[in-house]
């Protein structure tokens, strides 16, 4: 009877954030749904109570069903039978459990049979599912594809597909192709309009498609013949019941083995256009990717939680030299830093989620009525913050979950290298998080303009200007010094007048932001709850040291250094 919500005070803490008041208002809009739907809340407290209860259900399914199945799923994995994916038995049981518990369509409006819950709650459920089984999180978490339909598709398409998702139809986003990975402008899958059949027809191949045999697929395809760039791409929705897409193979992966990664062959597959032609990559995929990146932030945090728990448990149980190994400085230091990174990832996860949530709510409201000038300003502000924080979150949390999994194996020693403990699976599963939905390097590319335009600096100053308790003042002063170092670094890099140098130092600068922001968030949490003081202190120490290293590196760099690093381009084997 494990419950991944009730056993996690940190999650519960984030659910009680003061901004929830605003989020509930934006989401429920005067609680008008209460007269139309018997499961709609009547006021703020009622809504919050609903969220807690539903998360408790999700926590129970994670603890009692999904986590116990994880090892078996990892071992058996999905198979391709007659061009279709057959899930591992445990995966099928997981899907049955989450469907019976009504955990699909979590954020969708009630008129599409959804639960109309805030994104914050969906992300929490996501995190718990990932802690139970990161591979299954992909299959279940892909329901957020429906959010892209909800935002951009016609009413007709929404009415057709969204209730299906609420009832448990699984989704897929079919973007990548053999020659279009990080560079999606190169997508070649062809979409042609058939007058005769009155539908778009898709032809071509997609590769590395997570849950590629899902019920509803969003497909990026080239609808404008003769084009070769992003402007020729449109977004389509494909219904599996047409049976016109074959699964050619599934990849044999290092981790997340329960999640089928498919190669798909489209043969005259009928599909419907989502939104406007030519906006596929430019607008819709960007939205899809941002949502997916938030999802990876949740997946990474869930994996970090799992890794930390495995390590902590083992460090207490394992005795060497006559005492539990947790009593040795090398081990307790590792665990303390792991905890700080875990709680730091989570703090950044929910801060980012709240930014995304608020601007998304305003977007939906703007479809119903004209926003007031204040609302428009606020929406713009939150859109910018979401845009900056999403890649920052994806970068920091996915790198941390890899570090946590690495350290957790280290704490297990030789046993951790064996297949006998869950940590080896967590380690393998974690490895994908800083690769897919945009590698860490690409997150840096997405985040760097907020370094150069000052979005991050402004937000850091917002945090800086808040009041902190006297006992936290020493962290505050440390952070002010860190901000000054960061400004010097940015000034130095940008003043060298070479754009390639900005790219070269980009990661260092973005990570400096990450350390400052996370420390502020943990400090704000410590202000409210003493339980976070240690993580705030220890993360501040860690972040300060990391930023000093970056500072030294940049300050001791010059334009000519580039040649040292470019030389490798001339080397061949």
């Amino acid at each position, binding site marked *: 009877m494990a419950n991944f919500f009730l056993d996690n005070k940190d999650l519960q803490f984030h659910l009680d954030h003061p901004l929830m008041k605003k989020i509930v208002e934006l989401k429920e809009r005067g609680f008008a749904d209460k007269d139309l739907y018997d*499961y709609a809340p009547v006021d703020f407290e009622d809504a919050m109570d609903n969220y807690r209860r539903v998360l408790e259900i999700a926590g129970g399914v994670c603890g009692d069903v999904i986590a116990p199945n994880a090892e078996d799923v990892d071992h058996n994995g999905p198979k391709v039978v007659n061009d279709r994916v057959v899930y591992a038995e445990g995966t099928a049981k997981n899907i049955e459990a989450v469907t019976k518990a009504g955990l699909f369509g979590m954020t969708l409006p009630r008129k599409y049979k959804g639960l109309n819950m805030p994104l914050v709650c969906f992300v929490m459920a996501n995190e718990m599912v990932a802690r139970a089984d990161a591979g299954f999180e992909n299959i279940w978490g892909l329901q957020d594809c429906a959010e892209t339909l909800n935002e951009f598709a016609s009413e007709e398409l929404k009415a057709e597909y969204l209730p299906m998702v609420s009832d448990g139809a699984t989704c897929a986003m079919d973007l990548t192709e053999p020659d279009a990975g990080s560079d999606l402008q190169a997508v070649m899958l062809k979409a042609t309009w058939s007058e005769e059949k009155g539908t778009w027809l898709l032809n071509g191949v997609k590769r590395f498609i997570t849950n590629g045999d899902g019920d509803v697929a969003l497909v990026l395809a080239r609808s404008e013949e003769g084009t070769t760039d992003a402007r020729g791409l449109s977004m389509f929705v494909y219904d599996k019941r047409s049976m016109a897409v074959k699964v050619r193979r599934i990849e044999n992966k290092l981790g997340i083995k329960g999640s089928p990664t498919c190669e798909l062959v489209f043969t005259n597959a009928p599909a419907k256009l989502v939104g406007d032609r030519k906006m596929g990559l430019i607008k819709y995929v960007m939205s899809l990717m941002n949502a997916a990146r938030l999802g990876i932030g949740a997946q990474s945090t869930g994996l970090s939680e799992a890794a930390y728990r495995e390590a902590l448990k083992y460090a207490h149980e394992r005795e060497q030299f006559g005492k539990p190994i947790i009593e040795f400085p090398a081990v307790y230091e590792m665990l303390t830093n792991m905890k700080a990174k875990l709680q730091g990832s989570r703090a950044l996860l929910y801060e980012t989620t709240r930014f995304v949530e608020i601007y998304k709510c305003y977007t939906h409201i703007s479809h119903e009525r004209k926003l007031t000038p204040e609302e428009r300003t606020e929406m713009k502000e939150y859109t910018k913050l979401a845009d900056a924080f999403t890649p920052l979150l994806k970068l920091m949390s996915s790198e941390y979950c890899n570090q946590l999994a690495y350290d957790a194996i280290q704490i297990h020693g030789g046993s951790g290298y064996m297949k006998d403990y869950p940590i080896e699976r967590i380690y393998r599963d974690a490895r994908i998080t800083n690769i897919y939905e945009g590698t860490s390097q690409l997150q840096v590319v997405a985040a760097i303009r907020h370094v150069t335009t000052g979005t991050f600096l402004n937000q850091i100053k917002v945090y800086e200007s808040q009041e902190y308790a006297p006992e936290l003042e020493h962290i505050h002063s440390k952070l002010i010094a860190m901000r000054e170092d960061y400004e010097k670094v940015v000034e130095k890099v940008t003043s060298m007048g070479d754009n390639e140098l900005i790219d070269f130092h980009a990661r260092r600068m973005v990570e400096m932001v990450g350390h400052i922001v996370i420390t502020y968030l943990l400090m704000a949490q410590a202000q409210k709850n003493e339980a976070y003081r240690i993580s705030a202190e220890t993360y501040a120490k860690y972040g300060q040291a990391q930023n000093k290293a970056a500072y030294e590196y940049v300050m001791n760099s010059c334009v000519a250094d580039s040649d040292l690093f470019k030389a490798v381009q001339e080397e061949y084997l």
Partner: protein
Amino acid sequence: MKKTLKIVVLAKQVPDTRNVGKDAMKADGTVNRAALPAIFNPEDLNALEQALTLKDMCPGSTVEVLTMGPPRAADVIRDAMFRGADGGVLLTDRKFAGSDTLATSYALSCAVRKMNPDIIVAGRQAIDGDTAQVGPQVAEKLGWPQVTYAEQIVSLDEGQIVIKRRLERGVETVSCPLPMVMTVNASAPECRPQHAKLVMKYKHAKTVSEIQALQEDYYTELRDARPYLNITEWSVADVDADDAQLGLTGSPTKVKKIENVVFQAKEAKKMTGADAEINALMQELIASHTLG
């Protein structure tokens, strides 16, 4: 299978005896209910699943939970509603206190007469008493046929239900006319989980006693507008029961003696798995007649 059914599930709130701590028993040898969390009796959950399966088979059917107990036993009814039941009845009255299985069966049968179902589904037994008597006794009191140890409903046609029973040495498939009582084994499918929408829909459901006990009721209007949020509560008078057949007076079962059994852990042996050790262990087990 077209007919809609009225199904009643007999359920009991029990102390969770599966995870007992050291305060689980009182000095007099009775269960310390305060120290154990109150849960839905596990096999009654299997029964509820069978009832909900029947409802899925015959759309339009209703599932109601009948439970006898103190006011807090309403939790069982709510839990069932969160999983798909339509409502329930809490049978609560001081006069029921001290009832043994016979008096309980009598009280339940009085309530069942008033509810007038086609099928009663109950768990085989409760984990606090382990008697497995209440289901069958209710059937006897009503004069209805009963199928015990049910594991699966095979079919339901023209007033006949076909049920697979799990017996000690195999399975038996039997046919039974309605109305009838079935008791369900733990080997039957597990109950479906609470459903997010149902939890949000029914969480304000309360009995009259529960509403009276509230400091302030924030949801009066809601309950007025949604009658299903009022859980029915019946007393002895509501079910026209005879006082003499209830509580201690109606209970022929008398506890003669209670013994405290103290389990003592024996010394553990650690073995590395070497052949010689395994041989020695085998010989020891054969010598003690544990094996062979």
